Every structure is written in C-alpha cells, then in structure tokens.
C-alpha cells in the first residue's frame, strides 16, 4: 500500500510539474505553415495570387490551429486607381472566411461618364472557401490541393451598375480550385474555374439587363520558387463581357517576397485591358499582407 501511494505521488508530481507539459497544440495564431504556403491575398480577399484565387487556405495555421491575415492592395492604372483591403481567417487549414472592401477610383473618367470627378465605385466581398482534399506541398506529387469557394459580392453603387446596364448590384461567384507546389521543379501551378456573372469582378454589377448571366471563367497561375522567401510568376484570368463594353481578360507578372515569416509583399505588372471603354489599363500592382 505504501508503495502504491508513493508511486501515485511520484506520478502526480510528474503530471503536475509545469516543466513536463508537452508542446501545446491546437492554439490560436500558433503558426506552423511553411513560409509563403499560405499564399498572398487576391483582390477578392481570398488567399491566392494577385488576381487569381488559389486552393490555399489563408493564415499560417496548420490542421490544428486558427490563423488570420490582413492585407492592403493598390493598383495604379493610367485612368483609374484601385485600392482594396481585407481580412481573412483560416480554420485548421480547412476553412477560410474572408472579407474584402474594394474601392475603384474613376478619376477623370468619372467626369467623362457623368459620375463626377473622382467618383469611386465600392464593393464588399464576403467569401468562404473549403479545402476538400489534398495538400499544396505534401502527399502524392501529382495530387493537388482542391478547394471550393463562394464569394458573395455587394456593390454599393447600385445606381451606376443599373446605368451601365447590369442586372443587379449584388452577385455570387462560385469557385473550384486546384493548386500544387511541384517540389521537384520548384513550380507552383494553380487553376480555378469560376462560375460568375460579375462585370469587372462586380464593380460594374452582375449580369446584364439584356439577360446575360452566369458563365464559367478560368483563372490560372504559374510560378517559380526562387528561394524559401521569394517566388515569381504569371497569372491570367478570363472575364465575361456581359455589358458589351469590351471587357478584357486580365493578366499579370508578379514577384512575391516574404520579408519576415509574417509579412509578404507582392509587386506585379498588371494588364487589366479595357475598363468601361477606357483601353490599355496596364500598371503597377502592389500588395502587402500580414499573416499569423
């Protein structure tokens, strides 16, 4: 009996001693992802490249934690200025919930279109993404990470979207993405199918009064990893032309750099084509993201 009790005391002293507490897991903002594998923040707030959504889940958490990101993006174009910012939360590297606010400054075009100098179109994007299968880095080399997403967009300038002939100021996009870091080639490959009726991603509303609506569009990214912290690549994104304004496909050439484990900056040359009949909108894309 004495033996048993002193043994109990011994066990209790081990259990109670703080120095024996095992590494904690499942914590808030604990990090754990490899640098850059949380991706940057796309213009719609979901994790991805600059203009394309990827199958990644935002935040630095792994399968037992919760992570968050915040980002700011500016695109400087000949006739317009884009500014967006947003936040995202990643849960267990499985679910991503994000919000982004887009502000599109029409500058002199505002005057030309009768909106007024510097009229700014605004849109809120509420999005959710679910990782269905696979892992961006690990597992079978040719099995990608696959995610589905939904992006609900609310344009705050209904009068303008009606004036340009859109059917609605609000709309919802559905995405299906596959992304993989092909380690043997240091290549990141990502493809997304987007089912959408958004005009200029929604800044000019959704569908057309004339009856044009949902269609499938494609987003693709191809990038080369230069180092643990640096990656360069190209992206493209097809777009519908529901309004008959000559809306173009988008593309960009980007470089992303993880300044620290928590801060990533992305710089790109973006070609957004024709926007509201003003052509050749090519310029500089700059984005900064902080992630935990």
């Amino acid at each position: 009996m004495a033996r048993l009790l002193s043994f109990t005391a011994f066990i209790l002293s081990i259990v109670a001693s703080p120095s024996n507490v095992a590494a904690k897991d499942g914590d808030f903002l604990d990090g754990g992802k490899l640098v850059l594998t949380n991706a940057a923040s796309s213009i719609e707030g979901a994790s991805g490249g600059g203009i394309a959504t990827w199958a990644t889940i935002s935040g630095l958490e792994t399968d037992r934690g919760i992570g968050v990101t915040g980002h700011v993006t500016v695109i400087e174009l000949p006739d317009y200025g884009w500014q967006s910012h947003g936040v995202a939360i990643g849960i267990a590297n499985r679910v991503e919930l994000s919000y982004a606010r887009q502000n599109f400054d029409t500058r002199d075009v505002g005057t030309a279109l009768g909106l007024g100098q510097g009229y700014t179109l605004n849109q809120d994007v509420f999005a959710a993404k679910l990782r269905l299968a696979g892992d961006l880095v690990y597992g079978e080399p040719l099995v990608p990470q696959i995610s589905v997403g939904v992006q609900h967009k609310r344009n705050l300038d209904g009068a303008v979207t009606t004036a340009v002939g859109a059917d609605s100021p609000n709309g919802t996009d559905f995405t299906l993405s596959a992304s993989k870091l092909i380690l043997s080639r240091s290549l990141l490959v990502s493809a997304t199918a987007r089912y959408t009726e958004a005009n200029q991603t929604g800044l000019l509303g959704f569908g057309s009064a004339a009856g044009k609506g949902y269609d499938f569009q494609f987003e693709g990214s191809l990038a080369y990893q230069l180092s643990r912290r640096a990656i360069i690549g190209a992206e493209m994104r097809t777009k519908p032309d529901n309004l008959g304004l000559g809306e173009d496909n988008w593309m960009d050439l980007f470089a992303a750099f993880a300044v620290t484990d928590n801060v990533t900056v992305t710089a790109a040359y973006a070609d957004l084509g024709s926007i509201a009949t003003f052509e050749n909108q090519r310029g500089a894309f700059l984005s900064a993201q902080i992630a935990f």
Partner: protein
Amino acid sequence: MFSIILTLVMLQESPASNIDWDKEFGVEEKVRDPLTGEFPIEPFAPDNANAGAEPFDNAKMASYFGGHEGIRKIAERTVELSEQDPRISAIFVARDTVRLKRTLFEQFCYLLDAGCDYSGRDMITAHADLGVKMADLNALVENLQKAMREERVPFAVQNRFLAKLAPMSKDVVTR
C-alpha cells in the same frame, strides 16, 4: 480534490529507500553499445525499401550535397537543430539521436544515390509512437532546409530532394 490527494499522500510513511523500482515494474535497463554509442532496438529485417522512396538516378544530386561528407553534415545538423528547436525538441527527448544521426544519414545517402544502404526501420514503424503533427513536420523541414542552405545546396536542388521526402508525410504525421 488535488490538495486532498496530496495531503493523503503526504500523510503516508515514506517508502523504504531500498526499493528497486525498475525491478518492481520489470524495466530492463538499456545500455549503449560501447562501439557505436547506440541503444539496441527490437530486431527487424533491414531493407533499402525501408527508406521510403526510390533513389535518384542522377549522380549530380550527390555532388550538389557534397558527397558523403556533406550529406553526413546535413543529416546530423538537421537532428541537432531539431533537438534545439523549442517547437519540436520535446519529441527528441529520450530518443536515441546517436542512432538517428546515423540512420538519417544512411537514408539521405541512399536516396541521393551516393552509395549507401539504409539499415534503419521503415517510416511508419520509426514514427509510430512519436505523435508527430503537421506543424512538427514543417518545423523539421525548415531545419533540414537550414542545414542544406549551410552546405550551400542550391535551392532548386533542395526542393528536388524534398520532393522525395514529401510523400512520406502520411507515414510520419500520425495526429
């Protein structure tokens, strides 16, 4: 509740000091091999297939890693960095890292086709009771990347090597 137990415990007579607890619980004392410095392990059949992947078919890989000497440095450094890494050091406590340094070197050397056989256990058996999480694997990969960087292995070559190891994640990560 806890304090009641503690009080009860403290009220007990102290145990006779001549009890051999190892004997009471049938614990066998393990002794390091005087030659290798390693603890003995359960017998098993060594097989290169235990290394978990097919080796590269490319002599350049081994030379990028600095041959045997470079590979040994990288394997040992990875273990040392991990033992010092507060994120995962607990997993290495009470493990035979003398053996691990040798078998990890053999595995890397075998996979890089640098002329070694792998004499260790398979990845499932070796990691079965370690409770490794995904975040632990990422931490270990970072340490391996640091070790390879220190030996000036070009980044693209580091990734090619990691591509060999990445599919083993399912055998190593158990929770």
